[in-house]
């Protein structure tokens, strides 16, 4: 090697962090620091272009636009109202019923779309309206809507899992989907418990009991909507088709349901939905492409090994290391968005976690759970911003109401981190892990 590795590492990471602090978009910061380092190390620049193109040249990535599109169609097509109705029929009768409805509807919606933003913007207005009308504190209902939307990134389908599988190269998307299943539902149940306790203490109302026949009717009406979840889950779990293909079929099915069965979606609105997808793709694909080049330099300079050895130097206790990693991710999650963090951190952190006996699926779910908390923490949290905007609440007030909910999410995160059973049981059962 004709160059100094340490200088190259400092050049790569230093210029990257400097540029993003100076508000250059993350994707261009990654490009710029990669180009600089390549110039310094004398790497052929063509490699960068090839890395950028080849990191997008993957069939499983195609699932991202498809799942986004399916989510858009569902959101526009009246499916979200249906989900709230079903949830109300099922859990509305308990103390703090509408809060439970909020969580359950998000759980069901999470089974169709993988984005918390889509969750909040399509379910949020109705949920918050209902809760506020029933006498809940508007800040609390906003906070609960934001937190519950984080189930969406854990419960399959989740495009962040696809990004993760891309970033570390070849973790099975199906396995990740199955691994996220139980943690997502667990988060929902934890939130319901928290909501129950808070509702009892603040004396929030008990919802109306929906008669049995009515419940059956609502359930019947929403079967087509819920079938989407079944298509995706069963298709992937039992190997009928890959995640990408299930996403394409889910798109068609969602389109059929919302135009023919529920008749809420008009054909002339479709270009608008497509454009929304293209807008999200603009962010995600650019990141994946430039992260492909960036990660190439990161691994060429052996940064993961270096990071692992310095982290092991701090402590050799497995639990302490995991705690440190989680803390680091939580801090990063506060100031940065989910997708870029997954792309940057997972190639560096995965080797560390593998060496202390985690499997790659558990690490992925832990990472995504952790960054999901980051989605609702200030100063930068996508879900938090959108939630406050949709609910027209002030950020500080909402954050105050979120404090107990953060606690609940942290409990969930610790469970996912230290109990491998939660993430690994289902993938093992279905043969994704041995």
């Amino acid at each position, binding site marked *: 090697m004709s160059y100094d590795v340490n200088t190259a590492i400092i050049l790569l990471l230093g210029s990257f962090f400097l540029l993003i602090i100076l508000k250059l978009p993350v994707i*261009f910061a990654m490009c*710029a620091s990669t180009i600089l380092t390549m110039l310094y190390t004398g790497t052929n620049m063509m490699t960068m*272009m090839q890395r950028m193109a080849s990191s997008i040249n993957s069939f499983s990535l195609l699932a991202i636009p498809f799942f986004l599109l399916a989510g858009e169609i569902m959101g526009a097509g009246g499916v979200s109202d249906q989900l709230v109705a079903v949830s109300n029929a099922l859990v509305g009768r308990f103390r703090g019923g509408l809060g439970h409805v909020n969580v359950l509807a998000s759980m069901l919606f999470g089974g169709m779309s993988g984005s918390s933003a889509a969750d909040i913007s399509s379910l949020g207005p109705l949920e918050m309206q209902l809760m506020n009308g029933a006498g809940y504190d508007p800040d609390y209902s906003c906070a609960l809507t934001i937190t519950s939307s984080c189930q969406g990134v854990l419960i399959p389908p989740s495009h962040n899992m696809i990004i993760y599988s891309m970033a570390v190269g070849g973790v099975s998307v199906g396995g990740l989907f199955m691994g996220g299943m139980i943690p997502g539902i667990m988060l929902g149940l934890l939130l319901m418990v928290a909501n129950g306790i808070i509702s009892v203490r603040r004396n929030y109302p008990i919802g109306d009991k929906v008669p049995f026949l009515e419940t059956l009717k609502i359930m019947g009406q929403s079967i087509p909507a819920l079938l989407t979840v079944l298509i995706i889950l069963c298709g992937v779990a039992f190997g009928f088709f890959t995640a990408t293909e299930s996403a394409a079929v889910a798109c068609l099915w969602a389109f059929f349901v919302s135009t023919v069965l529920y008749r809420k979606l008009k054909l002339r609105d479709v270009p608008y939905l497509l454009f929304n997808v293209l807008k999200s793709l603009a962010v995600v694909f650019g990141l994946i492409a430039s992260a492909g080049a960036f990660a190439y330099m990161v691994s060429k300079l052996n940064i993961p090994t270096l990071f692992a050895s310095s982290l092991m130097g701090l402590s050799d206790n497995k639990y302490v290391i995991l705690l440190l990693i989680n803390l680091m991710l939580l801090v990063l999650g506060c100031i940065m968005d989910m997708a870029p963090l997954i792309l940057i951190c997972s190639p560096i952190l995965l080797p560390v976690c593998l060496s202390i006996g985690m499997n790659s699926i558990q690490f992925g779910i832990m990472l995504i759970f952790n960054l999901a908390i980051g989605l609702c923490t200030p100063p930068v949290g996508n879900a938090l911003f959108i939630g406050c905007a949709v609910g027209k609440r002030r950020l*500080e007030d909402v954050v105050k109401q979120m404090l107990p909910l953060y606690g609940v999410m942290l409990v969930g995160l610790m469970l996912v981190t230290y109990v491998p059973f939660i993430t690994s049981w289902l993938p093992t059962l279905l043969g994704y892990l041995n």
Partner: protein
Amino acid sequence: MPQNTLPRRGDAFLRPFSKVINAIYKALVLVFLVLSVALVLIVSSDVILRWFGFGIVWADEMSRMLMIWMAFIAMSIGVEIGSHVEITLFFNLFPKKFQKVWSVVNSLITMAIGCFIIYYGVLIIGIGMKGKLEIVRALPKSMLYLTIPVGGFFIVYFALMHMLGREDLMPSALDTIYPKRHSVYVPPELPGLRKPNKEDTGV
């Protein structure tokens, strides 16, 4: 598209120039909306046909090709609407004057990267002419990379327009496809939420 009626410096060149480019850009966005529908149809019909025993052999490769095409155009859309992830938290702590100067520097860096993408995009197309696609052997490998220089060009163009402060000459791609009558899905542009790239201060 809002037309600024007051004449400004550089109008004589910029107006006709941007008109042509905006027209191309809008056409591209339209084409890609159609292509994305085609993608869904190709992949899902492949699944369905496979149950009957005859899958589409080229579905995988063609859909990947369309995706690469979309990705690089989408990158420039991100520059146009300013939706690329950026961290404004620390930047807002700097003095206003520095912020102003550095925004120009950021645009210059973005343009430089755009030029890089154009140059190496053209090179990679040249190299790819020799290779063949893996499944559809009739086509050269450079088919995969066709839109890379195009995306690079629009990145440079939009970064330049932002730098000159001529947002009034930029197309709003949304208006092309959906002239102001969205009955569905009110996107979260409600009071309190500023443009996504400016909200990172949080309060």
